[in-house]
């Protein structure tokens, strides 16, 4: 089970890379996103996520959703699990050095979701790349 999921994710990532540009899930506001360049996310240069990778694959949404509730209701901001933090570390740059929205087609927060048919509404409100307003 464990292995299978990892493989399907890899497949998904490959698939998506060959689909090329098209009707992206990207923000309606974002100019048609250029492709993110491999290796340009801060995460690409690190070994570990905020929790073990296998755990993240299966449970990342529970982590963020828990964080969402305690941030909004209890004011807890000192954390590794903020959504803004996920985006900061996982966002990639395009060839021109500009951020590519994390939910643009094939980007980190979109590739798996497209594959499994999960759709999120988070990015109708939340920034999809660092905006320096934190």
């Amino acid at each position, binding site marked *: 089970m464990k292995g299978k999921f990892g493989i399907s994710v890899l497949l998904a990532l490959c698939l998506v890379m060959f689909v090329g540009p098209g009707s992206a899930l990207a923000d309606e506001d974002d100019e048609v996103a250029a492709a993110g360049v491999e290796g340009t996310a801060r995460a690409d240069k690190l070994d570990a996520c905020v929790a073990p990778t296998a755990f993240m694959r299966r449970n990342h949404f529970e982590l963020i959703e828990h964080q969402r509730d305690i941030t909004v209701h209890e004011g807890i*901001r000192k954390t590794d699990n903020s959504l803004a933090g996920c985006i900061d570390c996982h966002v990639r740059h395009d060839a021109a050095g500009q951020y590519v929205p994390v939910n643009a087609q094939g980007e980190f927060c979109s590739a798996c979701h497209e594959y499994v048919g999960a759709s999120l509404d988070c990015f109708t409100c939340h*920034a999809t790349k660092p905006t320096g307003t934190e």
Partner: protein
Amino acid sequence: MSQPIDKQRRAFLATASGAAAATAVAPGVFLHAVAEAAPRDSAVSDSVRYGMLIDTSKCAEGCTDCVSACDRENGLDMLLKPEGASDQHWDMQRPRWIRQVKLKNNLTGRVTALPMMCQHCEHPPCVDVCPTGASFRRADGIVMVDRHTCIGCRYCMMACPYNARSFIHESVRLKPTATPRGKGCVESCNFCVHRLDNGGTTTACQDACQHGAIVFGDLRDPNSAVSKALAQYPSEQIRADLKLNTGVRYTDI
């Protein structure tokens, strides 16, 4: 999920502070020492109640510094007028956390200008009517909307006696990280909660007021500027008859 309010503890504190005399500036406002550092790593508690005193005699007519500072701080200036909408329509519907309001005393004709925002009631009608629990009062007294559970029904907007809430009618195109928002949710002043949670002690409107008309702080701390000002000057709650025990008080209206 919302904070259960420990009524007994509250009653106990009220008595205790009553005994400590002079510090009870208003019902529900009593002393308690606090100093918490940040960004927060522990849940907010009711050892703090945030509140504000606005001295309307210092509030210059026509001045909108607090409103524009609030707009900037909370990303409200990033919202765009919908295509084809008239200026008048936009003026009426654009989300605003602070409104400049003019009050006229019909008997005397005296006019007062004042900033009106969420009054952060102890008994908020917006929380009572919310069907999903999205409208809630945080332990430290800040009344706000959890936009993850808001369904946009707008009951709270109808229930608020202060007309303090705004609705996001259109999808939001420019989204700063610090101020997420989207179509279909209600929002209102949250005392710049992101500042407070990150160790800040002031609100944007207070910082922007050149006339020093806004004092913000912890109503439970007798040594806070706001508690001292409340102890010193006569102040009122707007629509005190509703017995909501507002966290925002005004002098000279």
